[in-house]
Each structure stands twice: as structure tokens, then as C-alpha cells.
């Protein structure tokens, strides 16, 4: 009996001693586990109010009631609670009755003690365009060639003059014309050659180089914009969004299955993520990325404000630079290729999920279209759209009629777009 009583007093004294102490560490864990950060930040409004200083703004009792069940608290008629609810446009906070009052105290302790972010130098917004270098390097090369030629000509003149001087000293002055400085450039053996032979020789060599050069990089490229990769008003990276973040192309290009155009996404689609994601993934601190700020500017959106108030009255469209431009006299429809034929975007647009800056991957020449329409096999068996075509092919093969067209270069049976009228002029030109 005595020992029991002793034990009882001991445990009583222990429980008295082990008084509740709010732990910031525990609070941090709870803060993260309950995703408080999805609606709150410490120093700015997100969906809900900024948290820093909340311990001074409200007393603990009030906060515990609000956090655990703000709905019941509001209904109990607390004026402050209802005012707060109104201030945030009726965006109700979730109910956290799973948290005990002690756990809420832990969280409040964490909010109280969380360190302030160190002040940072203002980010310098890079504004210039630095992508000119690509085409500039060509002009630099040409300029260098020009300078090289001028130097050669001057050297030739110098050599001629020296030669004449030497000849004068020897007393065997040659009678040379003004335009012969080219001769001075050439080795003696060549200089003594018949001028006609020399001219033909030069023309053949230089002409050959010129022809190959202009064929490879010139004539066949007129009007072909393969490789065109313009600087866009916002340096949106497909590598980041489609590659690293694994966003489906259709998340943004919503028209691709239903219309002629894949459609350029409107800014509200950007805002589905960028209302919350505001800083560049590589940046430290809370500065808004300059590129994301451009979306906000276009939308006249103020990230400091909440809800409908954040959107101003003066939005301006973003003028993206069009990359793929099929000539006006040719028709192309995305939905036919993506939805019906089931082609991947990459078939024509290349490894877009690896492109930091999008470039035109395919030539978009007619030959390029026709090649695919002649040779690509379409999955006619599992696609209702091609049912009639598939039936006809099966019949033809059975009856040995026009059989050869169904065999590809590899000897396998396939059905091509051409068999479905993919080579008819008026399919694309009308």
C-alpha cells in the first residue's frame, strides 16, 4: 500500500514537472505534414494571410479555435473570425480537427521562431537579347574573308613593287601593266602560265566550291525554315516543362485533338501553376522570376493580392513569334494527325521535350509530307476511322487484286495514308 502511494505521488510530481512545452521542431514537422504551406507563406499572402507575427496579432486561444475548426468558430459568432473570412473573399480554411490543441501550440511556436530570410540584393533583370550571336558569326566570318582578300591584294602590290625595284637595279625592268598585281600573288610557276588556262582553272575550282556551297546552304533552302529558332518574348523552356516536369503536351496545347491548330496556350493555363510557383527553379530566395513576372505583367496580375482583386483591368496579349508557318496555299490539320492517326507530337516537331528554345525541326516541304504519306503505315486494324479502308485491303489481299501496293519496302503488309487519299492534290491545296 505504501509503495503504491509513493508511486502515485511520484507519478503525480512527474506529470506536474513534465509541463507542456511547445517545440518548434515538432511544429515544423506538423506544419509540413499538414501542408500549411500550400495556402500560407511567412512573409506574404498566398491563399491565406502571411503567418509571421500572427502570435502578436491574435491570442493563442483564438488561434487554436480558428485553426482547428474555423467553420464552427465563425458560426459561434466571433466578430474577428468572420471579418477575416470576409477579407479573404470567403476562401474557407480547411478544418484541422485532427490536430490537438497542443499540436497547434507546437505549430505556433514554429511560426514564432522561424528565422527571417536574409535580405538579398535585388535581382538584376536581364533584358537584352543575346541570341543574335548565331547569325552574327556568319557575318564575322564573311568580314574576315574580306579582310583576308584585301591583305592579299596589298601584299601582292608590295611584292610587285619590290620586284620592279629589283628589276630596275638589275637593269632588266619589265614592262608590267597596272592590273597585274594578281600575278604577284601567285607562285612563279603559275604566274608564267597561260592566262586563259589559269582563268579556266580558277573558275572550275571556285565555281565548284561555290556550287556545292550554294546547293547545300542556299538554293534548296529558300523558303525552308528548318532550324528557325526565334527568341520569344518569354523565354519559356519546353525542356523544363515538357521534359523535366513531364507535362503532357495537351495540358497546354488543348486544341491539338480538336482543331486545325494545336493552339498557343492562353495565360490562364500558365497561371494554373504559376499562381503558386513564382520563383525560378534555380533561384534562391523568394524573388519572382523575371520570366514569370512577364506573365503577371501580361495579365496585369498582382501577386501581392488575393483572389479576383489580384487581376487588374489592363491585360495585354503576349505576342509570341510564330515558328511553323505552312504556306497559305497548303492546308494542315493537327486533329487529323494527332487524334485520328495517333501520331506523337515528336514525329514532326522533333525532341521538343529537350529543346530550351523551340526550333523548327522538320522542313515542312511538300516532299517531306509526301514521303510520310507514301510510306508510313497506319494502324487501320484498331481504328474505326479506317474501317472501310481496312476492309477493302483485306478483300484485295484475299482476291489477289492490286496486291503489290500493300507491301512496303521491307516486304511487310501495311496500309499507307496514300491509300486513303493522302496524295490527292485537293486534300491539302484548295
Amino acid at each position, binding site marked *: 500500500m505504501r509503495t503504491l502511494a509513493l508511486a502515485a505521488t511520484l507519478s503525480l510530481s512527474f506529470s506536474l514537472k513534465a509541463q507542456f512545452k511547445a517545440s518548434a521542431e515538432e511544429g515544423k514537422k506538423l506544419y509540413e505534414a*499538414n*501542408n500549411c504551406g*500550400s*495556402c500560407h507563406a511567412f512573409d506574404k499572402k*498566398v*491563399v491565406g494571410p502571411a503567418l509571421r507575427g500572427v502570435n502578436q496579432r491574435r491570442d493563442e486561444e483564438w488561434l487554436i479555435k480558428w485553426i482547428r475548426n474555423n467553420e464552427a468558430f465563425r458560426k459561434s459568432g466571433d466578430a474577428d473570425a468572420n471579418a477575416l473570412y470576409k477579407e479573404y473573399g*470567403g*476562401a*474557407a480554411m480547411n478544418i*484541422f480537427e485532427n490536430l490537438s490543441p497542443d499540436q497547434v501550440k507546437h505549430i505556433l511556436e514554429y511560426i514564432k521562431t522561424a528565422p527571417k530570410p536574409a535580405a538579398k540584393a535585388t535581382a538584376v533583370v536581364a533584358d537584352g537579347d543575346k*541570341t*543574335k550571336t*548565331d*547569325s552574327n558569326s556568319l557575318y564575322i566570318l564573311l568580314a574576315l*574573308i574580306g579582310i583576308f*582578300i584585301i591583305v592579299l591584294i596589298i601584299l601582292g602590290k608590295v611584292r610587285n613593287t619590290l620586284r620592279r625595284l629589283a628589276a630596275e637595279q638589275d637593269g632588266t625592268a619589265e614592262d608590267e601593266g597596272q*592590273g597585274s598585281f*594578281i600575278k604577284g600573288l601567285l607562285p612563279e610557276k603559275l604566274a608564267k602560265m597561260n*592566262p586563259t588556262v*589559269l*582563268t579556266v582553272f*580558277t*573558275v572550275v575550282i*571556285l565555281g565548284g*566550291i*561555290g556550287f556545292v*556551297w*550554294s546547293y547545300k*546552304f*542556299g*538554293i534548296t*533552302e*529558300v*523558303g*525552308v*525554315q*528548318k*532550324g*528557325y*529558332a*526565334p527568341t520569344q518574348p518569354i523565354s519559356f523552356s519546353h525542356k523544363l516543362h515538357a521534359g523535366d*516536369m*513531364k507535362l*503532357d503536351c495537351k*495540358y497546354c496545347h488543348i486544341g491539338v485533338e480538336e482543331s486545325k*491548330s494545336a493552339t498557343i496556350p492562353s495565360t*490562364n493555363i500558365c497561371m*494554373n*501553376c504559376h*499562381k*503558386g*510557383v513564382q520563383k525560378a527553379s534555380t533561384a534562391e530566395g523568394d524573388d519572382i522570376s523575371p520570366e514569370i513576372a512577364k506573365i503577371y505583367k501580361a495579365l496585369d496580375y498582382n501577386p501581392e493580392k488575393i483572389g479576383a482583386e489580384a487581376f487588374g483591368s489592363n491585360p495585354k*496579349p503576349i*505576342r509570341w*513569334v510564330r515558328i511553323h*508557318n505552312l*504556306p*497559305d*496555299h497548303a492546308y494542315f490539320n493537327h486533329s487529323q494527325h494527332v487524334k485520328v492517326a495517333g501520331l506523337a507530337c515528336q514525329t514532326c516537331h522533333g525532341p521538343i521535350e529537350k529543346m530550351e528554345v523551340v526550333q*523548327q525541326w522538320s522542313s515542312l516541304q511538300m516532299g517531306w509530307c509526301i514521303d510520310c504519306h507514301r510510306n508510313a503505315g497506319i494502324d487501320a486494324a484498331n481504328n474505326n476511322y479506317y474501317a472501310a479502308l481496312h476492309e477493302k485491303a483485306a478483300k484485295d489481299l484475299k482476291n489477289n487484286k492490286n496486291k503489290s501496293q500493300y507491301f512496303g519496302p521491307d516486304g511487310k503488309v501495311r496500309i499507307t495514308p496514300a491509300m486513303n487519299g493522302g496524295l490527292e492534290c485537293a486534300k491539302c491545296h484548295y
Partner: protein
Amino acid sequence: MKSVLYISAGMIALAAICTGCVSRGNDTGWEYAPDMAYSKGYEPYNQGDSNVVNPYGMSMREPVAGTVAKGKEATHYPYDNSADGYEAAKSFNYPLDFEDKAERGKYLFGIYCTPCHGDNGGNDGEVFKRGLGKPAWPNFQDKYIKEISVGQIYHTLTYGKNNMGSHAYALKPMDRWRVIRYVKQLSGAGAEPAAASDSTAVNPNN
């Protein structure tokens, strides 16, 4: 001998000129007959000539406020984007002519939901991993999703909620219901749509 010089210079000039045809970087290269390549008529993404009539030179215009597309008269969602609307949405239910295509729901979920909510609704998508605030419930198997009314999910898909934006731009009304059905399936709350014949429910599609 002079001719050699002229011819060489000519060849180099020709090569240089032809090089100008190549497109790279910011340069489209040379084009022939650009008036055949760029539409003179106004097309949605036409940039050849800026549209002189419309603001900002755009060819596309927003429809007048309140426009209802042809054939979409009945798909209008009756509630406001407000707390009251969200509350009222509780009574909103699957339309009478709801035609489930499980594959379609899964397909759309894969495009429009997985970037944040993850393949199986575990809130482990790439966007959440990279710092967009997660919802307070841990995954789609949570009680919250099991119990929330389909009308409220519809409201959220239509207008967005907290960090989530509106997805009405991509999901048509019937597709929204298919996604909701798939979400309910994922949550394990049972695949059957709740009785759609509730006469008090506002049905968008009939």
C-alpha cells in the same frame, strides 16, 4: 588576269548570298513569294500583316461576355465562383444522360491532373514536388475525397480552388464528369454515379 579576280570575287559573293537563304536562330532565311506563304486573309495565328482593325493586331477575338456556344446552351453551370456557390454545388449531380467512358476519364486524368496529383492521386506529381503548395489532404484515397460531393469537385474543376486553377478551359462539361467519376474510382468510394435522377438536382446536360 583581272578576270580571275572578278570571277573569284563573284563566286565568293554568290556563296555568301546563297548562305543568306538558310534559316537559323532569329532569322527565317530567305523566302520566295512570301505573299503566297503568309495569309492575306485574317487567320487565327496569322502574323504576316498585323490586323489593323482589332486591338493589339490580333486576329482572334474573345467572344462577347455571356456568349454561349451553339449546342452548349444546356451545359451552363448555374453557380457562382463563391463560397455560397461552392456550398450550393453539393446538390449538383451527374447529368441524366451521363455516359461514362472509363478510358476517357483515365486519359484526361493523365493529362490534366497527374502533373500535380500524381499518377494515382498520391499528390506526388512533379509540380507538387517542385514547390507548388499541396492540398491539406494527403492523397485521393483520403476520406476528404471519398466524401466530398461530386458537385463540389465539379465546382472546383470549373472555377479552381485555392492553388488550383480552373480547368474548364480544357475539360468540357461531360469530360469533367468523366474525370470526376475516375477520381471517385481512384478514391475507392465506389464507381457508380450517385442517383442522377434526383429531381432537385440541377442537371447541366438536359
